[in-house]
C-alpha cells in the first residue's frame, strides 16, 4: 500500500501567493488575510497525492512541506 502524505504550510514563510489554494483547494485554505494553511491535520486523502506535490512545487516562498508517513 502506498505511503500516506501529509502537507504543512510554514506560517512564517507563507506570504499569501495563494498558489496552493488554486491548485489543491481540497488540501489548503486561506485566512481572512489570504494566507494559507493546511486543511485539518494536513493528511492527504488517497488520490490527491499529485495535487500535494504540485502545490509544493508552485509555492514561490518554499513554504509547503510534504512528508511521507
Amino acid at each position: 500500500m502506498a505511503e500516506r502524505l501529509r502537507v504543512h504550510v510554514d506560517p512564517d514563510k507563507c506570504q499569501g501567493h495563494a498558489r496552493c489554494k488554486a491548485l489543491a483547494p481540497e488540501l489548503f485554505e486561506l485566512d481572512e488575510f489570504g494566507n494559507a494553511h493546511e486543511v485539518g491535520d494536513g493528511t492527504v486523502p488517497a488520490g490527491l497525492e499529485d495535487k500535494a506535490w504540485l502545490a509544493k512545487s508552485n509555492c514561490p516562498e518554499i513554504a509547503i512541506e510534504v512528508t511521507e508517513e
Partner: protein
Amino acid sequence: MSDVFTPTDHPPVTDWINDFDHTDPRWTENPFPIWDELRVASPVVHTERFLGCYLPTSYEAVREIANDTEHFSSRRVIVRDVRPEVARNAAPPITSDPPEHKPAKQLLLPPFTPDAMKKLEPRVRAICNELIDGFIADGKVDAAARYTKYIPVQAIAHMLGIPESDSDLFINWIHMILELGIKDESKLVQAVQEMSGYFAGHVEARKSKPTDDLISYLMNARDKNGQPLEDSHVLGSLRLLLIAGIDTTWSAIGSSLWHLAKTPADRERLLAEPELIPTAVEELLRAYAPVTMAREVMKETTISGCPVKPGNMVLLSFPAANRDPKMFPDADKVVIDRRENRHAAFGLGIHRCVGSNLARMEMQVAIEEWLKRIPDFRLDPAGTVKWSQGTVRGPRQLPVLFGKA
C-alpha cells in the same frame, strides 16, 4: 523640494556589464538577451548611472535581496536619476519596512483575497465585453490602447468607488510617475500632488456620506492602537492602489495577447482547452513579468558572493529572475502548460503584491473573454508594437488584425 531636476538624455550603453541602463531603448525593446549576458557575467552587476545602482541577475540573488529587509530598504521603490527626499507615508505598505510594514499591509489584504475577487469577477467580465463591443466590428484594433489599458483601470476604479470615466486621468498620472518621472522630477511632483488632491476630495465627500468601497474601508480602518489612520497614510495607500493596480496588469494582459497573437499553436491550445488558461496565465506571468521593483542598500553586505555598498539603489528585477535557466528549464521559452512554476512575478517575501489575486483574475477573464469573441487574431504587419519604458514593461501599442491570415 527646491531644486527641481531637469531631465537629461542618457548616453547609449556600450558596456552592459559595467554600465547597464534599464531606460536604454534596447532594454525597452528586448531585455531578455541583455539579462542573459549579464547573468553569465555575474549574479550582481553595477552601474554608475542613477547615482549608483546594482542589478541582481539570478533568481537566487533576487530572492536573497527580497528577503533581506535589514540591509535593503523599500523606502525608495523606483530607480530614478535623482533621489527625491523620502516622504513619510509615501505609499504604505510598498514603501514601508519592518516593523511598520506588517500592520500597514494587513489593512489592505482582506479586500484582495481570492474570495473577494470572485465577487468582482462579473463586473470585470462585463468591462471586457463592453470594450470588445466597441471595436469588434472594425476587424482590427490597437489592443493595448482600447482593451488591455482599460480593464484594470476600470476594475480598480470600481473597487475604490471613483468614476470609471476618470480612467484617462489616472493613466496620465501613472505615466508621469512611473515613466516620465524617472528622468523628470517635476512630472513626478505634479502627478503626486494632483492625485492627492483628487483623493482628498473623495475622502472629504465620504466624511458626510460614507460609501461601500475601498476609500471608505480605509477611512474606517483602525491601527493596532485602535486609532484611525492618519490622513497622509490613507492618501498614500490610495495612491498606491491606483498606481500599482493599473499599468502593471495593463502590461501583463497586453504581453499575453501579444504572445497569443504571434503564437498560433498556443492560441489554438487555449481555444481547445480553456481549462488550461489559469496555468497559461502563470507561464505568461513568468515569461513576461511586467514589474521591476527597487530597494535601497542601507548597510554593507554581500549577495551571492558579491559585495554591495550603502548609498546605491538596487533594481530588483523579478522579470530577470524569472528567466534564470538554473531555476526554470527552458527559461527562454513559453511553455504554456508548465506545471512547476515558482515564478516571482508578484515579488517574493513580505512585499508580495497585495493585488496578485486581482491581477490573476483580470488576466484570466480578459484572455477568456477575448478568445471567446476573437478566437483568431494576429499582429498587424502594417503596424508597430511599442513597449513602455522603465519600471513596468508591457505593450503600449499593440495593433492586431482579427480572423485567420
